């Protein structure tokens, strides 16, 4: 493999890791709220979280480009804060990917929380565990398979991202040129040998990820 290809692989892994961690941090409270709430807003929030499942990535990428650009609300905000503009930067890709992979992390965790039901938490409360304590020592361990599925799917989905990166990335080596874009470039440039290396690698990687998910986590198979 060329060094440019290796750089793309490394960048992709870095992006997927950062995005997965952020999604576990921000996705868990959303999943918890969605699993426990009786609010009328549940449907609205659930639908927003699920939007990236049905929207073409080019739609998301297009709107992110406009909102994060110099004339968009987010762009104006980041400029005012002295952060510069997000398109064509690694942090920009991270934010876009967090949106894009959100349902893949939130939904498995939400399903896992829902499967626990009220009972174990009520029991914990009678044993004088605070809600915070009950969450960490009862809900999280019981929902472990959901967290595992969510993390793996979020990671794998971010690795496979293409449309959004194309729209807001600008194809900059070591900043925004991820593996999927690099494969696309190789194919366009008729460099089929390099394309096969990376594309074949992606197929094997994805298969192994899903194999691991199904083999070690059979009870939560329905999340897919």
């Amino acid at each position, binding site marked *: 493999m060329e060094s440019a290809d290796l750089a793309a692989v490394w960048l992709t892994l870095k992006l997927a890791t950062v995005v997965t961690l952020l999604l576990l941090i921000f996705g868990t409270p959303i999943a918890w709220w969605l699993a426990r709430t009786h609010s009328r807003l549940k449907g609205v929030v659930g639908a927003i979280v699920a939007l990236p499942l049905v929207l073409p990535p080019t739609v998301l990428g297009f709107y992110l*480009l*406009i909102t*994060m*650009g*110099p*004339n968009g609300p987010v762009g104006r905000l980041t400029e005012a804060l002295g952060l*510069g*503009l997000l*398109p*064509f930067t690694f942090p920009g890709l991270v934010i876009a990917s967090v949106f894009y992979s959100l349902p893949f992390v939130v939904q498995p965790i939400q399903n896992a929380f829902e499967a626990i039901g009220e009972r174990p938490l009520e029991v914990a409360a009678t044993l004088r565990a605070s809600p915070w304590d009950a969450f960490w020592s009862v809900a999280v361990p019981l929902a472990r398979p959901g967290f595992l599925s969510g993390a793996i799917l979020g990671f794998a989905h971010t690795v496979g991202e293409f449309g959004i990166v*194309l*729209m*807001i990335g*600008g*194809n*900059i080596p070591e900043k925004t040129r991820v593996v999927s874009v690099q494969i*696309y*470039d190789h*194919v*366009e*440039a*008729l460099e089929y040998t390099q394309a096969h290396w990376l594309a074949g690698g992606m197929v094997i990687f994805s298969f192994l990820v899903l194999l691991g998910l199904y083999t070690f986590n059979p009870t939560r198979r329905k999340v897919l």
Partner: protein
Amino acid sequence: MKRLSLLVLSLLAIAGARADEVQVAVAANFTGPMQVISVLFEKDTGHKAVLSYGATGKFYAQIKNGAPFEVLLSADDETPARLVKEGAAVSGSAFTYAIGKLVLWSANPDLIDGSGAILKKGGFRHLAIANPKTAPYGAAALQTLGKLGVAETLKPLFVQGENISQTQQFVITGAAELGFVAFSQVIKNDRIGSGSGWIVPENLYDPIRQDVVILAKGKDKAAATALLSYLKTPKAAAVIKSFGYSLP
């Protein structure tokens, strides 16, 4: 029974009419002119050109793998030559239908003066170009910057579009302050329509020759041959010129 044979006959008639259709793969930068030409072509010859737009490299991969295209209007002259050599296109059918012009363009009306001095002056954060590895306009942009002696200093500011349309999108949205696009994308009444721009002098880059070729699937097909002849008519030439291309 009579009804059935009538149905079969009318279906055959439809199938017969379809034979006058030609499936055309069109380079993204030529979308505008080809939309106009295809209407004139249908009116004047009765044949119908069915158009698909995209990147030339992608078309190449699709054609090599059995795509139903009969004519390719390429963004370069290398892809048609290559297809002929590999037996996927009709030899001797290729010719240059348009020569592309490169423009440095910004959505901001005050940014670029008529001499492109901003490239040396700087003061911008991103310069959008089409991917030089895959898009002829990107390669021409890189060549221009090289001749001006600013390629190395500006390289860190590059953002690359997958094709020339996406490059223009980066500039239109303001995400990149300026970028190299095709004149055909920003032309209005023979000049740059909006924003500001610099038409790059033709001695700064090799001519962007765009060739058309009949593909193996379009061999001996009347509508395909007719389309290629039609591209050479003064009527088609006028359309091509009005979109900012020059002719060989």
